[in-house]
């Protein structure tokens, strides 16, 4: 079995796709609004929103820890009674 010491593709330029150009007809079919995939800035905004959305995991962690602590306190109180 071969060993992996370095990622394939490391140091290579990022992959790019040709820009999407919409004709007037295609734009009209999209209701006159540029779809997200045709707008690199909108794509970047979408990614940034998803990245920030991951911060909700901190809230999940806080809630989960709070529930465990609450359970521990209840158990301690019940056993002490």
């Amino acid at each position, binding site marked *: *079995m*071969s*060993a*992996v010491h*370095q*990622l*394939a*593709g*490391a140091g*290579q*330029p*990022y*992959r*790019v*796709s040709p820009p*999407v150009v919409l004709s007037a007809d295609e734009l009209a079919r999209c209701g006159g609004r540029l*779809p*997200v*995939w*045709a707008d*690199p800035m909108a*794509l*970047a905004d*979408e*990614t*940034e929103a*998803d*990245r920030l*959305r*991951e*911060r*909700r*995991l*901190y*809230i*999940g*962690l806080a*809630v*989960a*820890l709070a*529930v*465990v602590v609450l*359970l*521990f306190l209840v*158990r301690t109180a*019940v*056993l002490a009674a």
Partner: protein
Amino acid sequence: MTGFLSAGADVAGIGETVLTVFLLALVGIGAIPVVAGLAQFLVIPLHAVRNHYRETGPYLPNVAVVIPAWNEAAVLPMSIERLMGLDYPPERLRVYVVDDASTDDTPAVLAACAGRFPGRVVHLRRDEGGQGKAHTLNHGLREILADDWMEALLIMDADVIYEPASLRKMTRHLADPTVGAVTAYIREGSRDPKGMTRFIGFDYLAAQAASRRAQNVAGAMACLAGGAQLHTRENLLAIGGQIDTSSLAEDTVTTFRTQLGGRRVVFEPHARVLAEEPAGVDALWKQRLRWARGNVQITSMYRHLWFRRSVHPGLGGFFFGVFWFAILLLPVAMLLTATGLIGLYLLDSRLAGEVFGAAVFVPIATFVFMVTLTMSVDPGTGRKVWREALLFPGAISFVVLLTAAFPGLVPLSGTAETVWTLFVYSWLVLCIPLAYGVRKLEGTRWGRPLTPLALYLVGFGPMMCAITVDAYVKEFRGAAMTWDKTEKTGRVAA
């Protein structure tokens, strides 16, 4: 004479001490999966900072979607319709349905779809089918790779429905040249989930949305979801341009080969995909048995990889190895814990009670922590399946845990206390054959009304353990690798 008796008593004392230490060690070893599970879930919040989003780019390659299909007429029209409606440049998306010699209306359905979306839906027909998903996929791969149009390949199942933005959320990761493949978050998608499908809903929430975030953080992915795996062309060619046909876990082999080839595999939690899952115990058993046997095969196939960072820093790492074996050997761990506790009880009931009383809060706290954190990663799904989350180990286990956490709750004494204590200690093992019994119950004439009740009593978790035991037995016996296809009826809500 006195000296002889004294020496005998010493030997007996030493023997008892050794036995006690051994039994305590069994309990300790049996607790490893609990600790591994806790460690994995503690890592999940790190995904907020340790993710791949900063290395993405606005990359929209030509994507060929390949769908293996055998008698999928009920679900294909909806899936294709949704694919054609994805928020993705239409001229950069083609769908190839590989019809594995279907005997239903699949050819007619595909002809209608191809006519409706000319040049974008391609029907590839195998004249002789039944060899399994990997062979069907390979038929499509040969056709797709023969043309250099495709830059990325999405492997999906016929029943799967993608949310509109999901594909472009996956392709953005491929901008990074070190990424070979991306997988999405598959959710159970029944319109009206109940019983089994609710359990699967929670299972997917824990195993995909939560656990795969931890795998992103650890830099090692166990498995690309079979219904949502996006590969670069370079990666497909690097792994041989074919899907493995030698095991029942072709998705896992593809995932391992990608990573061992030096490419990263990324989970994208915001690319959401709905899938139809089994509604009955027997159908679930067949599906999960295939997965579990596949995992046993992978463990043997990659035996030179485990716990060897020199082979692969992620897959060969300690964290990934413990995580992998904690799941694979969970039934063994449960057996060791039960044996240790029962042995201790027979040797010294007071010590057993102290050990159990002191240690029981750890699995309870771990379970509560994991359930709460899991539901928080997708609160919408979590709100639907919170009951199944709490009853995942089964209602009986729930009562056992509750009485263990609050010892005074059931006032017992004498023989009743002994029987109850032995039942609690042995339940970890007893639940496995009972889960097998639930499957058998489904086949009887009382099965329809009683199976859901039995499932909630015994639990989904013990059922997974029973399936893993079945996988050990089938692999040990060298049972035939049959591909029991899950029946799809089009229940998924679009």
